[in-house]
């Protein structure tokens, strides 16, 4: 017996074929409209996972790249600051060299000192440079101004011109104690007496000591930052990189003390300058200023050697910063390549190839139209037309 093919069966099948073709057409239309091959995770779960993974990796690398780009701007600010510091230090070196040869008058030496003091101010300002509201050279103490130069309480020594001398010592609160030295003996057999006038006005007199002829003035270069530099994450597995340079590595910290001792016999003071600290540009400059002021050639030479060392440090740190920046460049290039590859992978997985998609869409459209035409033809074929 022949298998029956009934009208109902035929129309049922035709409807199913049409629905199937229409479904395919619809899917291709969606792909064309979105230009994506995969619009839902169920389209291809494995490819969708790769797309999601690629997206995450791209975001991850872009995060590292952004970190490094921002840090490079910061490093550029550090580098620019160091460049300015270099210019200032070089000028200080020139001034110091001139001051050290001992051929300049007191006035000229004073001018040198003033110039060095100006350089110190500029250098302090450079050491306190900020980037994006954070100090560049204070390590992780981003809001703490890294440098301040703190002069000690002032001590002065005055030749009163009448054979008496006054030493004035100020304490931290500005209270002044004066020591007045008077010779009650003769020139040959001097008998120096010191009258001490306390801030409250009380007085006492005693025999002059060697310390009464000595005054000490110091400047402390305070570093308020931390000893650890800022770090950022630049790669998987906790890969970190230090950003920037610690202030102490460039500008140093310590105390420069000028000691002047008056010799009443000779009628003049002799000054020496001492540095207690770890060197660095600011300490050496302060030492230079004090040494020029004191006329202490040894101290000038010592300061010049410190400045030269500071310049070497600057060059070294500049190289370190350059290396960091270069490392960032290398990594960014590698990450950029990764991002490019991942984007390409993602694109190959999810983006529709428009040429082939349009061709497929047109084919599907023809198929759909053909199925409509065929169905209507087939449905109209019946013996009914012939009776």
């Amino acid at each position, binding site marked *: 017996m022949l*298998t*029956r*093919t*009934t*009208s*109902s*069966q035929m*129309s*049922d*099948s035709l409807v*199913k074929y049409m629905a199937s073709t229409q479904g395919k057409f619809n899917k291709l239309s969606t792909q064309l409209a979105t230009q994506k091959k*995969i*619009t*839902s*995770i*169920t389209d*291809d*779960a*494995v490819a*969708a*996972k790769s*797309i*999601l*993974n690629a*997206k*995450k990796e791209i*975001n*991850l690398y872009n*995060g590292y790249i*952004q*970190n490094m780009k*921002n840090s490079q701007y910061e490093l550029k600010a550090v580098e620019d600051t160091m460049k300015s510091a270099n210019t200032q230090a070089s000028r200080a070196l020139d001034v110091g060299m001139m001051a050290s040869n001992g051929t300049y008058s007191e006035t000229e030496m004073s001018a040198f000192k003033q110039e060095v003091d100006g350089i110190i101010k500029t250098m302090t300002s450079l050491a306190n440079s900020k980037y*994006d*509201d*954070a*100090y560049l050279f204070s*390590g*992780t*103490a*981003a*809001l*703490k101004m890294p440098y301040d130069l703190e002069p000690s309480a002032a001590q002065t020594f005055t030749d009163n011109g009448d054979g008496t001398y006054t030493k004035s010592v100020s304490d931290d609160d500005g209270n002044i104690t004066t020591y007045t030295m008077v010779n009650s003996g003769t020139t040959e057999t001097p008998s120096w007496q010191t009258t001490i006038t306390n801030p409250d006005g009380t007085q006492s007199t005693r025999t002059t000591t060697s310390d009464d002829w000595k005054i000490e003035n110091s400047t402390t270069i305070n570093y*308020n*930052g*931390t*000893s*650890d530099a*800022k*770090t*950022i*994450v630049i790669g*998987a*597995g*906790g890969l*970190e990189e230090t950003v920037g340079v610690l202030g102490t590595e460039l500008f140093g910290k310590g105390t420069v003390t000028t000691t002047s001792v008056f010799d009443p016999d000779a009628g003049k003071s002799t000054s020496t300058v001492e540095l207690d600290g770890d060197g660095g540009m600011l300490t050496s400059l302060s030492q230079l200023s004090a040494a020029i002021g004191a006329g202490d050639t040894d101290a000038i030479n010592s300061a010049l050697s410190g400045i030269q060392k500071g310049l070497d440090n600057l060059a070294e740190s500049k190289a370190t910063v350059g290396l960091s920046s270069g490392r960032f460049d290398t990594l960014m290039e590698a990450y950029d390549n990764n991002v490019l590859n991942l984007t390409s992978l993602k694109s190959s997985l*999810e983006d529709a190839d428009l040429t082939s998609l349009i061709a497929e869409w047109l084919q599907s459209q023809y198929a759909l139209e053909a199925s409509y035409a065929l169905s209507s033809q087939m449905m109209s074929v*019946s*013996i*009914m037309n012939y*009776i």
Partner: protein
Amino acid sequence: MSINSALTMAVNSLQVNQLALSVVQNNVANMNTAGYSKQRVNLGTRFVGGLEATNASSQASQNAGVQITSISRYSNEYLAEYLRNQNSNLKYYSTESDIANHITTLMDELSDSGLSASLDAFYTAASNLQQNPTNTTARTDYIEKATNFAIAINSKYNDLASYRTTLVGDGTEASMKASQLTDNVNKANALLEDLAEINKRIISSGTVNSAANNLYDQRDAVLSELSDYLNITTSIGDTGVASVSLGGLDLVRHTTVSGKLTMKANYQTADDVRVTIGLEDSDGNVVKSDINDRITGGSVGAMLKMGGTSKTDLTVQSAIDLLNDLASGFAEVINGIQTQGWVEQSDGSYIPDPNASSFAMSLGTDENGDKILASPTGKIFVSNDGSNYINASNISVNSSLRTNLSGISAGLVTGSASDFTNTVEISGEVGKQYTLVTEIDRYAVGNGKNMGAVINTRNSTTSSTLNNLSPEDFLMAGVSKIGIQSQSISNQESSQDAICSSIESQLLSETSVDLNEELTDMIKYQRSYEASARVFNACCDILNVLVNLGA
């Protein structure tokens, strides 16, 4: 044989052909009626007289024309039963596929608005904060992005939970009664009643005739519809009465609904919502209290499964579990970093852990108003319902940190518990928070190392809840699993659809109406009718001749 006999036969033939034409008409009228089986008129010769004819004359006199011996129905019970079984599977897969599609739509991570986008935004904010730990905008961004993540995951949880409520309820009787599952169970129960009623009518209709054929069609339609809901087994008795069972338990026996489906909501927890389907007899006695494991097909089976508590198969619950694990694991990881090295006290303050070597540091202000490093003031993520367990429904950002952005632990210092003191005034109070003993280290507020630790969790974590994966990888793995499971269900539906289409086509081929066939039959019976009418006329003419003989 008398002329009257021939006349009677002609009339009889006219009647029979007329009836046959009406059957053809019925077939044509129902050619598009779903479930209608073509009926066929079976004709037989009509005899009169009881004795065997011994000669041609007596044989002729016994002929009494034509009669309809039966109106048979084109059917194939075995194929129909097979189709019902397969249809039950198809309905199961298609319902599963619909639900799976809905779940994958809710868990869509390919778009730019999914949870992975929220996580990416969070990590980008962490990266910015790492570079600018003292920047208020960076802190605001970090906490806002954490909030966005919490809101996004809350929203997804609510969408899924609400969808499950629509599907099977939320564990309460009221919501269960308003669920799709109840609709389906009610429809199945109504169909069982219908079937029992049809069985009664089949029995009362007696012998096989056209009326019974229509009842059989109705019966088959009910059975077919019933297979949409349940994985029934049918047995058709000699009289055409259908008995239906489910996993060996009778649902309809002859004319009685012996197993009506009952439902019971069973709330365990918000994330463990169960519905138990049982059976009761016509008197309301419990036949079996739980038949869930026997309902393996139809839409009811699919809803029970997808709305169930399986963690291995794709269910609404498994998607919720994924969100819960992500929320819990992510909160555990981020909170762990936020309070690293510190032990929380019952009053919410933190003291340094004597065994720790790394300490997360937030910001405070010293007596001069300068920012200093300080011990944490709280976790980033907390539950908004007071529960100790953070999940996708209750995860939220600590409101105190939203108002006190300094509380974000962006810094990380290494050392030991002895490096900290709580004798310093921090943010106007002494003793509440710790800072570093070494004064210079207190001001290391540009330390963003703890955000580096946050960023590193983008590669891996030590959270067992996240299987030691990064939150994004954990989410991707889960979503991908949902996608694969959904795709597999969709493939099963497609292949099952192909099987059903093939069987359906075969069944249609055997039982449906073919217009050409009917029109051919129509011409056949029409011709026969016309011929009988001519015989009738001829007989009338003969009678006329006879009546007028001798006139």
